[in-house]
């Protein structure tokens, strides 16, 4: 079923039986790694000049994939590559495998504004292009793994690659509520991008219309607080868009909590110095030994 309003959703049993955790990875690490993967996608997407719909689709695909697969059997970096590659094709903005692999290598090794990049402790690292040079051999190895993971990914969700995103609904709803205003919509979209990084995987558990309503609610509230917008929405407006008060409350809590979670995670990996996020299996095993 393809529709702008509905997505395939995770079942409660799928959420309970987290494959990565069943494989012996602590819950906090598994959540943190999924965040790191999503952040790498977001940063790479910006450098590759991909539209946000492509980036968001890739993040949702990555989340769906790790809903049914384990981080210990499918390496994070290959899945990130595959998710971006697949989503770029699905949204008709195809990227070249070489650009993609170059960009992610750059982000992993060179100090950059991205939260998953190492901190620049010395100026030397900035000027050393060797640190992020991808050799031909390395490129082909990564590309082969990426293409295999892509097929695994399609298989894992039965070719249901459809991803309805809430961005356009925000515009629609704001228009319907007669509060279409640039700063309000900007803020709502920013909240949606926050929610993509949240550990609760709301894009797998809630349909886009609920996410759109929650984002618009928060945006209208914070605009009201800052005194900028005159967005006074009628009481109970969310019911018009088929969202119950309880659901809205939950989503608002998740959206607001995302910022704190991201801050924690950024600190977690930045503090580690040169040894960054365990992107491949080997590093993950090392990390697990360190933990356990």
């Amino acid at each position, binding site marked *: 079923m393809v529709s702008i309003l509905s997505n395939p959703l995770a079942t409660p049993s799928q959420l309970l039986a987290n494959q990565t955790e069943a494989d012996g990875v602590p819950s906090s690490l598994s959540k943190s790694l999924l965040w790191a993967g999503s952040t790498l996608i977001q940063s790479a997407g910006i450098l590759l000049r991909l539209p946000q719909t492509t980036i968001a689709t890739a993040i949702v695909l990555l989340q769906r994939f790790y809903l049914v697969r384990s981080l210990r059997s499918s390496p994070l970096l290959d899945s990130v590559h595959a998710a971006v*590659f697949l989503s770029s094709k699905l949204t008709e903005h195809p990227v070249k495998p070489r650009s993609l692999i170059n960009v992610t290598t750059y982000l992993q090794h060179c100090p950059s504004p991205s939260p998953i990049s190492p901190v620049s402790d010395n100026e030397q690292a900035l000027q050393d292009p060797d640190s992020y040079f991808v050799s031909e051999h390395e490129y082909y190895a990564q590309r082969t793994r990426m293409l*295999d993971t892509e097929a695994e990914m*399609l298989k*894992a969700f039965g070719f249901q690659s459809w991803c309805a995103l809430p961005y356009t609904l925000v515009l629609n709803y704001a228009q319907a509520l007669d509060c279409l205003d640039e700063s309000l919509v900007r803020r709502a979209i920013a909240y949606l991008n926050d929610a993509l990084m949240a550990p609760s995987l709301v894009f797998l558990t809630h349909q886009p219309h609920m996410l759109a309503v929650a984002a618009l609610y928060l945006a209208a509230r914070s605009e009201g607080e800052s005194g900028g917008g005159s967005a006074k929405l009628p009481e109970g407006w969310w019911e018009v868009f088929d969202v119950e*008060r309880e659901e809205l409350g939950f989503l608002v809590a998740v959206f607001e909590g995302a910022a704190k979670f991201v801050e924690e995670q950024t600190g977690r990996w930045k503090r580690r110095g040169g040894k960054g996020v365990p992107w491949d299996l080997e590093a993950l095993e090392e990390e697990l030994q360190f933990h356990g």
Partner: protein
Amino acid sequence: MSSRWADTAEDREHAQRLKAEKAARKAAKEEARRRREAAAAPPPTPPTKKRRTNPSSPSASSNSATTTSTTATSKPLRFPAPEIAACRHVDTYEPLNRIEEGSYGIVSRARDTETGEIVALKRLKLERETDGFPITSLREIRTLMAARRCEGVVGLREVVMGDSLKDVYIVMDFIPHDLKTLFDDMPEPFLLSETKTLLHQLLTAVSFLHSHWILHRDLKTSNLLLSHTGQLKIADFGLARFYGDPRPPLTQLVVTLWYRAPELLLGGTTYGPEIDLWSCGCIFAELMTREPLLQGKNEIDQVAQIFQLLGVPTEESWPGWRAMPNSKGLTYPKTQATVKNHLRTRFPLLTAKGVELLDGLLKMDPKQRWSAEEALSGRGKTFWMEEPRMKRREMLPTWPSKASGEKRRKRGSPGAPVRGDAPVLEGNLEVKGLFDGEEEEVAGAGFALRMGR
């Protein structure tokens, strides 16, 4: 000798057994009903904690008990959400026979071992792929999924995989006929009433696709399937894709040559749904004659045949056609006669309204070409209202199905274009043979003896 209808002891025993079984079933049903009722017995209603959020009117707000009950009854709409589930294995299907081999896959008939239903399995050719899962196959699966609810589109059931990751099969409903094969077997072409039924179904399906932002880009008679109950279904979405507004630049190398619209042949890259309607026009003509309308040998010949039938476009009939990338190299005779439209003489038996519809679908200027909606309920509406009316689809004749049994013949229709660079019509190519034999043309109406309409 007793009558063969007389009750024997055996019969009585059988009747008794049936009676006993029926009683047992009834008892079980009763039991189940009682249990259900017990389960559904209203539990003590918990006090509703939900805050009242939409007071219906100021006067009613004083009576809070009634307003609470009304808010409780307004249920929010919930959308059906499919599960995220892995592909099944192709072993679920038992192969029966091969139907067809196309440029991007092999189609075979198979039986679902669980339900016994007959399906069509299309195996995607992925061996030669170097860029991962091909974008065309992704589009095919996505557009088919998006069009699932349309009865005029072949139903996608699921996608299954074999042992390796390169083994991907699309499972679709099996439909016994395609129109192209049917034409070869039919002793007579379709009657006008039958043509109307088929064309109406085709246009309805195309209108559904376009309203869902899907371009098919390879409509032709061999891609139109016909069920035993006369339901026409569009198949083969191998070239289909989503489009948008503003129109994205698209490849011009789409649609099988004989059904390709002039703006594509002249090198346009920002085409839209109109190209599917041109194909519909060609199919309309083919339904009446069983012969493809314009059988060009190559791109330049196809352009020549189009101009021969519809006349060379002028600045009035197609503003800006000279600015098309490929039209600069074309030379053509400039006389009054060459701009004449020959549709009327080509289809002497078609009513005036029918010719109007055909002409609307075969407008060379894409801006003037009718949309599917227009052809169904706009300017084309009168064609459907006049006699002979559409035949009910169940009343269409039936034929033995080639796809379910014997070997199929190879057909001499050019294949869909494969990926690659589009040929550019460059240089001073003269459209040869364009107006040869014009003297021999019949000016008046033709003659054909037909029974029934």
